[in-house]
């Protein structure tokens, strides 16, 4: 509430995130993480932060966000392949396409709430998935995926290894900062009000429908950006990018981490990818079962996710 607060003070969370993220290549291998996984974690951080604006703030659970991720990935792939190996135009077109798709899907699905909204978004995403598998096979490569892209370039730099990591991390930091700004703005207040009491909000002179659509589209832009970066990270697009499995993974990441906190879902994304790629080596095929148990335990005992656990811990330490 104090105007004199400095930039650092106000953006403590962003600064801490930036420090942790940028130093990842140094400490992540010590935990068994291989190089490249850190880039993937950063990409999913972008995805979940946008997703959390929708789920955590307005309370709308989309089961179809893979659509925006996948559509942007395919668009990026095709742009790199057929237009230019430069990533900037590819990413811009990809985000634009997924934004337009989000406007249409949002207009159609946001008329419903709760489970109906979730099912509708899932249905749309599945529609795109089957389109990629059949109708648009010529472009998407169907079952085999889209391959044959040149090495992506940013100006004169080849987008490989560390270059991709630092690019993605920089984008993730900026996107997290933007999300924090939105959270603190009157628009963020309206998003939370939509979750609390939509009718009261309408009767308070606010066009709740437009704010819902705005949030939906913003979260789709985050998803699209993540999808585009995914192709820069690894020049391949599989049909799974559009699948319900991908949509579900984002939901699980958000819930495990703690929805409505922005930071929580990023923790969830980090945990889940680490678990899936590193810890699963010891667990073998059973890792999904273990993940299922962890998810259940979190939902039952700690509905606020990792963030709730951290704040409980913090309170206990403070008391002693």
């Amino acid at each position, binding site marked *: *509430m104090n105007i004199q607060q400095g930039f650092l003070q106000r953006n403590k969370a962003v600064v801490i995130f930036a420090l942790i993220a940028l130093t990842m290549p140094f400490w992540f291998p010590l935990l068994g993480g291989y190089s490249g996984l850190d880039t993937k974690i950063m990409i999913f951080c972008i995805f979940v932060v946008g997703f959390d604006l929708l789920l955590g703030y307005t309370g709308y659970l989309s089961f179809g966000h893979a659509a925006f991720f996948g559509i942007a990935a395919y668009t990026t792939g095709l742009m790199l392949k057929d237009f230019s190996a430069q990533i900037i135009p590819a990413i811009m077109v990809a985000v634009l396409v997924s934004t337009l798709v989000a406007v249409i899907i949002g207009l159609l699905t946001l008329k419903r709430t709760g489970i109906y909204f979730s099912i509708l978004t899932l249905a749309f995403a599945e529609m795109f998935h089957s389109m990629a598998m059949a109708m648009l096979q010529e472009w998407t490569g169907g079952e085999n995926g889209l391959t044959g892209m040149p090495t992506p370039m940013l100006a004169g730099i080849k987008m490989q290894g560390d270059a991709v990591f630092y690019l993605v991390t920089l984008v993730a930091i900026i996107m997290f900062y933007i999300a924090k*700004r939105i959270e603190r*703005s009157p628009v963020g207040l309206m998003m*939370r*009000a939509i979750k609390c009491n939509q009718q009261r*909000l*309408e009767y308070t*002179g*606010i066009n709740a429908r437009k704010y819902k659509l705005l949030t939906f589209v913003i979260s789709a832009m985050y998803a699209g950006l993540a999808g585009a970066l995914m192709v820069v990270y690894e020049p391949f697009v599989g049909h799974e990018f559009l699948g319900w499995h991908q949509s579900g993974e984002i939901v699980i990441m958000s819930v495990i981490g703690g929805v409505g906190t922005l930071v929580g879902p990023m923790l969830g994304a980090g945990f889940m990818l680490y678990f899936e790629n590193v810890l699963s080596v010891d667990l073998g095929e059973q890792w999904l079962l273990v993940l299922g148990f962890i998810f259940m335990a979190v939902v039952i005992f700690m509905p606020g996710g990792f963030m709730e656990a951290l704040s409980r811990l913090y309170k206990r330490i403070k008391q002693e």
Partner: protein
Amino acid sequence: MPILDIHQVSLNFGGLKALQNVNLKIEEGTTHALIGPNGAGKSTLLNVLTGMLEPNDGSVMFDGKPLLNVKPHDINQLGIAKVFQTPAVFPEMTVLENVTIPVFAARDGSFRMNMFESSSHQRPLIEFAEEQICELGLKDKLHVRADSLSRGDKRRLEMAICLAHKPRLLLLDEPTAGMARHETEQTIELLNNLQDGITKVIVEHDMNVVFSLSEKISVLAQGQIIAEGSPDDIKGHPKVIEAYLGEAQV
């Protein structure tokens, strides 16, 4: 000119005639009560005024502007606020945040907010919201979550939300329903002390509330206005007695 002019409004739910040719004029600055037995159409009429229901026939003019086919949020922006039967607030937000919402709505309109300004840095707006809260006696509850307030305090908060937008017409749907005696009296006092100039339309069952607040009363029965007048006129009106006793005999 009346601030609100309801002309020949009819509304059917299937075969049920909820409102039949209702004519009602509300004068600016008055408190006008709508009474009548259950199912008379009082709440339906309020829902028509807030844009929730569309009548089949008739017109509603607010300050010379038509209200039909206007969305609830636009109606609110025109200056009509509604207090619900069950206090409608934003439960998971603090009292201050609750009242900040209408303050932003008043400044920015229904959809023109800035995504990148910090809402807590808008000092004059926040101070205005705080003033509204203090005026309604919630000064020490600024940072308390709305869902932990008592029912009476929630009602105050809802009033603060409605008043922060400086409405010209306040619609109240049974504001004292389910309240204990002392809470009802507090509400009457609150309503009597509202800033001057606000026109109030109040739907109420509690005759004590009706007679202590209103200057004019309209009686609805089976979707029609059967009587209208000052509280003294209404008290002994034969049609009113019939409407209420008729219901009692069913």
